[in-house]
């Protein structure tokens, strides 16, 4: 049962990656949009009945966010309010401004990564770009897997904080 949930969650995360990237690039550029989106996602989350939310909170949140992005782009609610997949192919097309913004965003992210401690940066890049597992990274750096997780978490939150300051 639990493993079933796990599978679904991983699946959803992978499938939604593109939309989430798009969310970051397009929404983060506009503070008001980002705020609105979070606000609306929050209220929808509150309306979800606890048992179903608890079964898979991450997948639930991503789907809500994705539906909201769909609405933002098309001005229409998704065909159904269910959690079924929504076609987002058309909304994934980026405008010229989006592309420019995205390039800037990537540049900033690279620079912010460069300011992390070498271990945090190594953990993030090796895991994400090079697909290394926690234990492979732990072996390469000579630390425990618990430390690898700590590097990842610290690195991500530092990136987030630094990037936020670009937009305030």
């Amino acid at each position, binding site marked *: 049962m*639990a493993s079933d949930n*796990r599978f679904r*969650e991983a699946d959803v995360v992978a499938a939604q990656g593109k939309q*989430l*990237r798009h*969310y*970051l690039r397009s929404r*983060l550029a506009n503070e008001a949009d*980002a705020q609105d*989106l*979070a*606000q609306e*996602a*929050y*209220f929808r*989350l*509150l309306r979800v009945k*606890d048992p179903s*939310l*608890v079964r*898979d909170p*991450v997948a639930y*949140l*991503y789907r809500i966010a994705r539906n909201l992005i769909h609405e933002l782009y098309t001005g229409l609610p998704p065909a159904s309010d269910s959690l079924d997949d929504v076609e987002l192919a058309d909304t994934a097309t980026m405008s010229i401004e989006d592309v420019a913004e995205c390039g800037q*965003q*990537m540049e900033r*992210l*690279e*620079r912010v*990564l*460069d300011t*992390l*401690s*070498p*271990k945090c*940066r*190594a953990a*993030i*890049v*090796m895991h*994400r*770009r*090079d697909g290394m597992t926690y234990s492979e990274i732990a072996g*390469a*750096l000579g*630390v*425990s897997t618990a*430390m690898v*997780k700590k590097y*990842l*978490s610290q690195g*991500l*939150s*530092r*990136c*987030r904080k*630094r990037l*936020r300051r*670009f937009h*305030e």
Partner: protein
Amino acid sequence: MSKDTSAKRSDVIADEAADWFVSLQEPGAQSRAEFAAWLKTSPEHVREFLEIAALWEEVNTLQSQPSVDDLVAMAITDADDSNVVSLGTPELTAAAIPRSKTRPEATAGRSRWAALAAAAVVLFFAGMQIMRPPAADPNLHTTMTGEQRSLPLPDGSIVTLNTQSTLRVAYSDEYRDVILGEGEALFDVAKDTARPFRVITEHAVVQAVGTQFNVHQEKGDLVVTVVEGIVDVNTGSGAGQSGRMRPGMSMPLVFEPQRLMVGQQATVASGSSKVVVAEATIDTAIAWQERRLVFDFLPLREVIAEFNRYNDPPLTINDSELDLLPISGVFRSNDRESFVQFLQEMHLAKSTTRADGTIVLQAVDDDS
């Protein structure tokens, strides 16, 4: 002020979001109900989690980061054993080896990082005249601007000297005394209840048995931070180098030590012997070990002073209105270019470089 408070609150939420995000990568590791409850705390919680998730996806596409081999090399050489310099005398090196026996608690199961955290940091800025070294003294160790160096002490403790620091080792049968003339040092103190470990600074003596603490003295102000264990701070008149206290001497009984516990920080203002105790930020206190500088709403003037400890020629401010500009962030101590670039990106300041290499910061005109 309310903007500061809300920025700090957002930072806390971002930290929590990142923790959740990473632990949720692992199937079943965390309570989903707990996470769901966390998400429902506020829209900002939802937002930070989504931002972290989006960031995670974005990192996936990075191409210009170094190769795995280079990343590993940088991570491993950073603040690691590789820069431990042997003092050269065979008995000192031999003495350093049985360290794990004297500190069984520091062995199996504890990561390198934990071992570092279980170390003592002593920061001390003082006039150089106290410690003007006679040349080629084997007990005297100094570092140049930007240099960091680790060396084993005779009892198996390890000291890491930060930039522009001077340390003299003056061990006796009763005491493990070291004198920090200037600069900053991280002490990983081997346990020896029979022989206290003491750091003698200009106006105070900081004493431990086998423990972890941080002493920071700048322009006469002293800050002691306990990373682990218990530390006594003696500030009575004559307690430090400037008074009657000398290496090997026992502490006069008239001194009433201030006892500090884990996570506590004591501040002694210049010219006072009054000790004010507060909670500490330990991570920040030992960040220099990883060549990180951590600033949390620190005035630019002080931020620049920090960078100048590691870099030459210096950064200066040409505009007094910039002095008190609060700066938050984490920077590499040996990469002030990124810091200057950060200031420019944020439209906080612009920079020019003088012929002698000095980098001058100026305020940005609002309409430019």
